[in-house]
């Protein structure tokens, strides 16, 4: 929903990219972790006309109130992990909205001047901390750092609960998440 029109805690985000980049997973992880903090959440996979060739996406809403629409025509934030996704979702962002792009796959820069765009070489960062497949977690870290919608601890716990037995991946994923957070924090410090 439009910024400034909603009191209390509220965030929505569309996460889009290739199938297999783990966007569905970080969407669920975000919603699950927020649920564990007692918030209202919805997670919905791409299941509408916005589904186009080459993109898989999901929408997450987190709020301290009952959530009405789980579908967001004009999102507050988008996470895009490939070119078709930035084409599809940059135009939909609210003014002053948050555009987080994985520059390892997104080869163009933002066209809109009224949004806060951050380009993150997520695959490079993930590789550096041990698992390139955790690029999605870098992006989630960046998003959480920007919005503070859930705590790092909740994500950590959520990861453990959702990953279950695959504990060997846990550490790399958590590291990637923290690197994503750090990337944004350092960038913000620089700009300020």
């Amino acid at each position, binding site marked *: *929903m*439009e910024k400034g*029109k*909603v009191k209390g805690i509220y965030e929505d985000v569309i996460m889009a990219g290739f199938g297999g980049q783990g966007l569905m997973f970080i969407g*669920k992880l975000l*919603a*699950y972790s927020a*649920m564990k903090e007692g918030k*209202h*959440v*919805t*997670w*919905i*996979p791409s*299941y*509408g*006309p916005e589904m186009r060739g080459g993109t898989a996406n999901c929408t997450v809403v987190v709020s301290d109130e*009952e*959530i*009405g*629409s*789980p*579908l967001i*025509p*004009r999102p507050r934030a988008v996470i895009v992990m490939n070119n078709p996704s930035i084409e599809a979702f940059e135009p939909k962002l609210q003014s002053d909205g948050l555009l987080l792009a994985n520059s390892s796959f997104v080869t163009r820069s933002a066209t809109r001047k009224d949004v806060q765009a951050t380009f993150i070489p997520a695959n490079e960062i993930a590789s550096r901390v041990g698992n390139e497949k955790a690029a999605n977690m870098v992006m989630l870290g960046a998003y959480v750092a920007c919005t503070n919608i859930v705590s790092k601890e909740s994500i950590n716990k959520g990861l453990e609960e959702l990953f279950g037995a695959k504990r060997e991946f846990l550490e790399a994923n958590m590291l990637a998440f923290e690197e994503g957070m750090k990337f944004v924090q350092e960038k913000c410090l620089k700009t300020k």
Partner: protein
Amino acid sequence: MTEKRFMAGNEAIAEAAIQAGCRFYFGYPITPQNEICEYMSMRLPEVGGTFLQAESEVAAIYMTFGAAGTGARVMTSSSSPGISLMQEGISYIAAAELPCVIVNMMRGGPGLGGIHPSQADYFQATKGGGHGDYHLLVLAPHTAQEAVNLTMLAFDLADKYRNPVMVLGDGNMGQMMEPVEFPPPAKTEFSKKEWNLDGARNRPRHLIKTLYLDPPVLEKRNLAIAHKLGEAVKNEVRFESFMVDDADVVIGAYGTVARIAKTAIKLLRENGVKAGLLRPISLYPFPYQQFAKVAESGKKILVVEMSLGQMFQDVQLAVCGKTKVNFYSRVGGVVPGYDEIVREVEKTAKESG
């Protein structure tokens, strides 16, 4: 209440059925409700129940008929084209007065249509659907939690009225994940039915039939079913009135569209437009009186649906010309955004008279 679980609507409905004592499920895969089949195939064996993937929706509904005839709690589920195939069997189940629960996660039609959410099966669900004079009781949740509660209620209503009950959702609701809680199971033993088939031991044999070749006899049967449904119309109207009291424009919407409308209403009120929502929870019986009351109080009504005006007709019937009823819809799998609803409500508010 138990701990919150993060579940997709389809899974939540399946788990709710199990918690309501459903131990038999017969179905046939069709998008967007496959997760119900899949969840049942995993969970029912754990609780000593039976999951069976039928050879078609036609077979699935008659397996449901067969199990319902024993008095067991039984469910089937499908999506629009599959529900169309089931209509013959649903008519037989209604005629035989057997309790069962049917879930329809609607998708776009007609024909093969699409796999995206729709509400275009409203007529089929609420007006009978199959041949002959009958109605299903139809419950339309708008959140995953409500899907849980209404699925559990559906089994009780089916038993109470010996009538099939439909839980009507859409692809959106089936796929969306939300936190849900399951109330602790109230009971696991259900009252023994007086009519069920389980072998005629120490009693006269029971017969489940729907053929009555003598017109006056069939007429009597039809009237008995109508009388029974009349009782349901008296007792089972369910609706939510959301910010209606001071509203100038009342949105009429159910299911997914209704929750989107709630967001629109919040935004409209920020803009100074007093909007509200009258949300039918039971689509049959329909809250005619509640819409009539809205009309009598001089409020304007905007019906928003993912169909080309199906529930709209019921609202018009209820309102009976006492106020203007506007209509807005997206169809074919397109879900109306809250921004569209905001725009339509503002238009309606500005219209004179």
